[in-house]
């Protein structure tokens, strides 16, 4: 009978965990689903970078409640406002999180909510402005998994 000592056991356990993670097909699948949602939202247009930001913790203590703030630069006015901001999480079973709709009455183009993240992943925001232009930003959030609160 073979008995592992503590060091050997941990090496085996770590290796098995790494293999299990590497073998998960859902990572690619989640990202693919997210890009499909983005493409649908863009409707053939291209998104520029800058002018749109996402504020989130670098490391989320619990994936059940991750605070998120979306911000489009500049005040909302009748001439210029973000009609829709699509938020996606590319590592969740379904990537959709929310779509914010601003109006000239919104004042700012900033809103916050709390979301669920199943694991460490990219959160994507795409803003559609009232003139039909688009902006996009991608941000990585690390999610703490596997404690008493996990």
């Amino acid at each position, binding site marked *: 009978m073979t008995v592992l000592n503590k060091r050997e056991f941990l090496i085996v356990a770590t290796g098995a965990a790494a293999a299990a993670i590497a073998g998960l097909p859902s990572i690619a699948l989640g990202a693919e689903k997210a890009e499909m949602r983005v493409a649908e939202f863009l409707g053939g247009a291209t998104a520029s970078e800058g002018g749109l930001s996402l504020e989130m913790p670098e490391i989320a203590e*619990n994936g059940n409640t991750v605070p998120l703030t979306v911000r489009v630069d500049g005040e909302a006015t009748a001439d210029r406002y973000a009609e829709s901001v699509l938020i996606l999480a590319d590592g969740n079973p379904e990537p959709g999180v929310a779509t914010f709709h601003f109006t000239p009455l919104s004042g700012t183009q900033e809103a916050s909510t709390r979301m669920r993240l199943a694991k460490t992943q990219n959160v994507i925001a795409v803003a559609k402005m009232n003139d039909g232009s688009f902006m996009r930003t991608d941000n990585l959030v690390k999610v703490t998994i596997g404690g008493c609160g996990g």
Partner: protein
Amino acid sequence: MMFDVSIGKLGRWATAAVLLGGLAAQPALAGDMKTYPAPEGHPLSEIISGYEFRTPETQALQDDDFENPAFLWVDQGEELWNTADGTAGKACADCHGNASESMKMVGATFPKWDAKNNRPVNIELQINQCRTEQMGADAWKYESSEMIGMTSFVRTQSRGEPVNVDFSEGDMEAWKAKGKDLYYTRFGQLDLACSNCHEDNYGNQIRSDLLSQGQSNGFPTYRLKWQGVGTLHRRFKGCMDQVRAKPYKRGSDEFLALEVYLAYRGVGLPVEAPALRN
């Protein structure tokens, strides 16, 4: 010696190794944690609220009474406080008036000795005594949203007051001693006592979680894991489940004794209910 280890023991040890794998070589507690002097006879010199072990984002949720989702339950409790129920047609407010005055110290001084029933009573059990004996209403289930709402509302009236339980009444010392026994008893397949995590290893990681002192000053608490507010006894049950033990029942004498002992371990900490934890 290695061959003396039975498979059962190895299995248990191996699981414990996975759970406690992260315990080694963690930095000492951050210096910016707010500490309070421990009461006399306490095994630790300083006591620390669970708040201090959480991330800034989680702390921020507790810091703002509007952003703290536990206030949804506090609001529900306040509504129930003013609503008549039972055959006597009375609401809590009919006897106790304005909760911000009448309940001011309740959250800090419970569990309390109940001379009539010759046992300690916590806020949940006291609420049900009022309901069945004074109001002619049905007892609430221990973990019902009504019970959690009312307990949250009552305990929130003591926010900021230091925990100050009277152990000199009746047999409170005996109940405290019984709770202490439980605190140091190893339970479950993982063979862990409360003390192994919350006395020996607070400030260390258990897998990805930062272990606290397991203080009770924030309960009832909104846990991110629960996505709602729960009782202290639900948390006890969760700990016992996690060490793979058969948990005692919520409201049981065992959990009540543990609650009495934990109150002692946190004497002097400010009541934080309704707190926000991981």
